[in-house]
């Protein structure tokens, strides 16, 4: 199991966290077109390499945090 560096609790097993994936900015709901909105819902970069992603420390401090992870090697670092 990989370790996720929690800024509050230190490195913990990834099993303590819920994976949140790439954060996607929420379009302004008053002006967003369907295309933009569905891009927000469905499109992800799916990078093979370093990516920034969100995790939720479900079993620990219950904080959402941001981590950089290489999706090929699974190396992680704090942004």
């Amino acid at each position, binding site marked *: 199991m990989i370790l996720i560096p929690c800024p509050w609790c230190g490195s913990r097993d990834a099993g303590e966290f819920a*994976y949140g994936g790439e954060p996607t900015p929420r379009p302004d709901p008053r002006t967003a077109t369907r295309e933009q909105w*569905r891009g927000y819902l*469905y*499109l*992800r970069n799916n990078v*093979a390499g370093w990516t920034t*992603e969100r995790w939720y420390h479900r079993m620990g401090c219950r904080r959402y945090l941001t981590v950089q992870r290489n*999706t090929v090697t*699974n190396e992680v670092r704090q942004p």
Partner: protein
Amino acid sequence: MVIVGGGVHGLATAYYLARNHGITNVAVLEKSYIGSGGSGRNTAILRSNYLTPDGVRFYDRSLKLYERLAAELNYNVMFSRRGHLTLAHNDSSLRTMRWRAEVNKASGVDSEVIGPADIKKLVPFMDTSERARYPILGALYHPPGGIIRHDAVVWGYARAADAMGVHVHQDTELTGIDVEQGRVTGVRTSRGSIATRVVVNCTAGWSTLVANLAGVRLPVQTFPLQAAVTEPVRPFLDTVVVSGTLHVYVSQTDRGELVFGASVDPFASYSTRGTLEFVEGLAGHVLQLMPSLSTLRLLRQWAGLCDMTPDFAPIMGHTEVDGFLVDVGWGTYGFKAGPVAGETMAECVATGRTPELISAFGLRRFADGSLVGEKGAAAVGH
């Protein structure tokens, strides 16, 4: 034309292009050896007991093509029709099983909900007692389901396509797709360039990266799916057993090994190294189903890559780039669809029209908001 990916989808597409449409000027590009991706890493389970009528029709066609594949290719792919059980451990999954059974029956596919006593008859090793942590309330029994020798399918298609003049280039990696004024003009590879007006993306695990080369964005996220196999023991398990609640599926090969799979890993990754928690969880769940297997030894674990789409249905057909077609997003069920995907993609390429069988699977559906309902049940199904 160029097909990217030398797995069952790419090779089947090439084969049906040649066989059904007489198109043999086809190059299949494979960056490693044929069948080295998902085609050689899946657990080779076949079934057609899907939830939506679209899904049922599509996979039923695939199963029928599989059934006669050995004779057609003159290559024994060892299709073993041994029945497929999807266990329901709670009320809501039992309800979903009934729903699936009824949709299946309405489409002429053999599926039935059966109770614990009948399950016990099919699988004497199963703990069907009420004391189980997750008692088995029933199962969706699908007699046409079974397993096949996955490598043989790949080799059989490759051999037959090759015999009709298709070129299969192994160790050849796609490095670029040339698009001019919205249409494909050629591809570049690690071993040279090819001028072509049609490129079909039949990859799994790398489908977004290939699509990005053509400037097409896909609603896909790549997750590892792990599998494992035990040492052989004398045959004792005749059916394929799936439990969505326990995230496990198991079958026994003709060689006596148990082959296990599970749901995809909990986070997106391109890593196929595998994890310890996968085998721990897998073993725990298998023993919940069949407690007397504690002494059976796990021999090997591996992982493949699954391209998950938002609605658990594939993306097939044309894209906004003229000449760039996709046959991707196969999640955890790509192998089952190999023959029908090849047949319909070949038709799509050859005729320029989208066959009715795959009309629900177009890329536009995400922008249009008309998703496919396989996710409706939110049940794990393999």
